[in-house]
């Protein structure tokens, strides 16, 4: 529970502004969930959160403090930046997931794999064969592009088909993430730890797949 720096009443909803006296809070330690006055969980109602974002923007935005003191202007600027950072991070399911895991003390992405050898560069073991095949196709197409030759229609078709397969894997990862995050939201401490561990692995797999899908689209785009 946090208290208003101005009127000392307990803050309800967003911790960025006192609902009672209207004072903008100058506390840079507020996390993104507190900023939007939302319970710390994965499952959120994005439309409702957007309405709250707009409501808070009207209260906090520097435009509303153009005639205020320098200190109030500074508070408004810092609070609005935090509000915008919060909404930007929480509205997207993946960045929300990563943020919440970090907030819960888990190492995500580069932090747990180590810089430069992040898991997104190492193919998941069950995909080794398919990734190898995909890379051959990509290389073939890039070579012909480099030589200025017309792309081999069969290779393009194969690559497009592989792309679709990897996209469906990506979708499967997203579904799994949604299931695990629901377990985290409703589970007890032990279930949460297990869900978090699985989500961190799923996120690695997701990053890897996403890079592959992007490569496929870029190469196909250049061939088109």
């Amino acid at each position, binding site marked *: 529970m946090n208290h208003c720096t101005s009127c000392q009443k307990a803050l309800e909803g967003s911790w960025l502004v006192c609902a009672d006296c209207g004072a903008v809070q100058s506390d840079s330690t507020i996390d993104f969930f507190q900023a939007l006055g939302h319970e710390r969980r994965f499952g959120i109602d994005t439309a409702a959160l957007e309405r709250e974002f*707009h409501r808070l923007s009207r209260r906090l*935005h520097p*435009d509303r403090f*153009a*005639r205020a003191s320098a200190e109030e202007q500074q508070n408004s*600027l810092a609070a*609005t930046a935090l509000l*915008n*950072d919060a909404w*930007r991070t929480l509205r997207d399911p993946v960045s929300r997931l990563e943020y919440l895991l970090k907030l819960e003390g888990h190492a995500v992405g580069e932090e747990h794999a180590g810089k430069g050898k992040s898991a997104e560069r190492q193919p998941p073991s069950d995909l080794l064969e398919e990734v190898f095949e995909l890379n051959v196709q990509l290389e073939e197409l890039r070579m012909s592009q480099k030589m200025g030759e017309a792309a081999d229609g069969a290779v393009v078709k194969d690559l497009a088909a592989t792309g679709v397969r990897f996209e469906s894997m990506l979708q499967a990862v997203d579904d799994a993430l949604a299931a695990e995050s629901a377990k985290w939201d409703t589970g007890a401490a032990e279930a949460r730890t297990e869900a978090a561990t699985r989500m961190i692995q799923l996120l690695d797999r997701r990053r890897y797949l996403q890079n592959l899908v992007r490569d496929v689209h870029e190469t196909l785009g250049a061939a088109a």
Partner: protein
Amino acid sequence: MEHIVGIDLGTTNSLVAYMQGDVPVVIPGVDGSNLVPSIVALDRLPQDADQASGAARPTVTVGNSARRALIASPERAIYSVKRLMGRGIEDIGEELKFFPFRIAPDVQPGEVLRITLGEMNFTPSEISAYVLRQLKRNAERFLGVPVKKAVITVPAYFNDAQRQATRDAGRMAGLEVLRLVNEPTAAALAYGLDRATDGSEPTRTVAVYDLGGGTFDISILKLNDGIFEVVATNGDTHLGGDDIDNLLLLVALDEIRMEHGVDLRQQPDAIQALRKSVIEAKIALSYDAVARLDIELPGGQRYQREIPREVYEQLIAPVLERTAGPCRQALADAGLTPEQIDEVVLVGGSTRIPAVRRLVDEIFHLTARGRKPHTELNPDEVVAMGAAVQASILAGSSSATDQLLLLDVTPLSLGIEALGGVVARVLQRNSTIPASATEHFTTGVDGQTNVAIHVLQGERELAKDCRSLARFDLKGIPPMTAGMPRIEVKFLIDANGILQVSAREQRSGTEAQIEVKPTYGLTDEQVEAMILDSFDNAESDFAERQLIEARLEAETILSAVNKAPENGVWLLLSEAEQAEIFATRDHLVTVQSSRDLKAIRDATTALDQSTRRFAELMMDQAVSSAMRGKTMQAADQTLNENSVEIHAPHPFAHAEIDEDAAIAGGEMRKRQ
């Protein structure tokens, strides 16, 4: 009441507007025109100037009057300076090919540019400050009170340095810049004014296509219950009507050389005169199927050319096509298809070109969906009107705007240079501003007390391909084992789109000192030194000053008009026109010495209006004499013979009077 004005500082034209009650209104200059051409000309320095006092700033002419200097003394005049704002010598190569910018010879890469006008050098911000000061004076004249605060618009795709240079210009002009607003967003505000803010309308998605004199922006916004939320923006800060002018000019120069064996390329005055003709042809081609060029060349030959619209459209197609890429990128960034765009707003003078409208129609599938773009508001004025709306939002002064809120984005990603010259992204483009990001740094050597950080803006992977914003030195780090210090650096982009940086060492809790060296910016001290006439802000004698200036203004135009009949061009006027001029002149003479400010000004305006055609005839004469290929010296001599001492009629509003009439007066002075 204190007024906050909205200013559109354009590449070609600039405007100032304010909220009159609940309606944004553009403020005209004394010549009745809402547009002040963004042209600045350095007046001739007085021969016996008191250099020792050092107090006197050079006097300059701004707007329509400076337009004549472009032809009469091109080495003392400059236009389209917005293209140089916040840029360095190493990234203006393309501009120098097409624009007569004379860069001071000693400017080094990485430095703020300086432009030579006559015998002096100016930074782009200073040149812009002269334009802003003129707008400020126009507003003060119109409103009758000092104007000190402004909202200034910038292209949405302006980077940090370009924004800072614009804010600096405002400060130099004696204006407190309360906010920089993106031009397409301002246009959306101007259009959105009449819409419901009671939540009764569903969210609408709007694209603003803004093709101005020198810049192109595309912004996609969601409008919901009075909140204008930009979801994506893109653009090109060096693409606009200027590029079309240059294309037409190059074609004409080539043809004149090939067909008539006349090379005009080394004759700045002739080029400017030709440029004026091709711009007129360009404007005509937005309405007519064909435009004609008919220009007298040195030696009496004539360059005559018909330009059919189809030929013109083929010629400019590559320029227009450059706007399509940014539009598609903005749609992709917003995650929208063209069909999901409910409305398209056209902004900027270049959107009058039919080919531009066709392109926009294709990009957003408008006709196919039975839709038309918004063109109801004057595309030259809509940005200034939007700036006035934003000014009103900041002032909290109008019930029409108190429910409106603008949420804009940063157009370019922010990054820092990492090992190997690779850019590590800190903030993605299209993040709603204000926005912040925190990064951690450490040391690589035991006892290291400094860490250098290079901040960049742009979308490319390598630092060398992005825009260098600033280099920071984090100083005063307590000596520790390598890798031990944990320095937290906070990047904050404010509501103007301008970056602020702060840092602290977390283990010791010491605030690390930051020395910000903006790559293309001016220091506070430099800006202070460039502030134009700070006395301008003295409020006490404002009314008296206005009266004195109005009288001076009247005197200047009267002296010009009194000598007008001695000019050959006078005979081209009809008797009725001449009589009208004498009548308005006599009226001004009778009110001139009164203390009735409004009467003096109204009479001055009336006289200015009645001499409009005379001024135009004078201008045409100047153009044709330039085209006849006089050399600079000869032109100068002619001017001196006619004694064109283009002194400001007074230091307050000299561009407001019809400058051509003032020049006419000047020309007659020596003949007496």
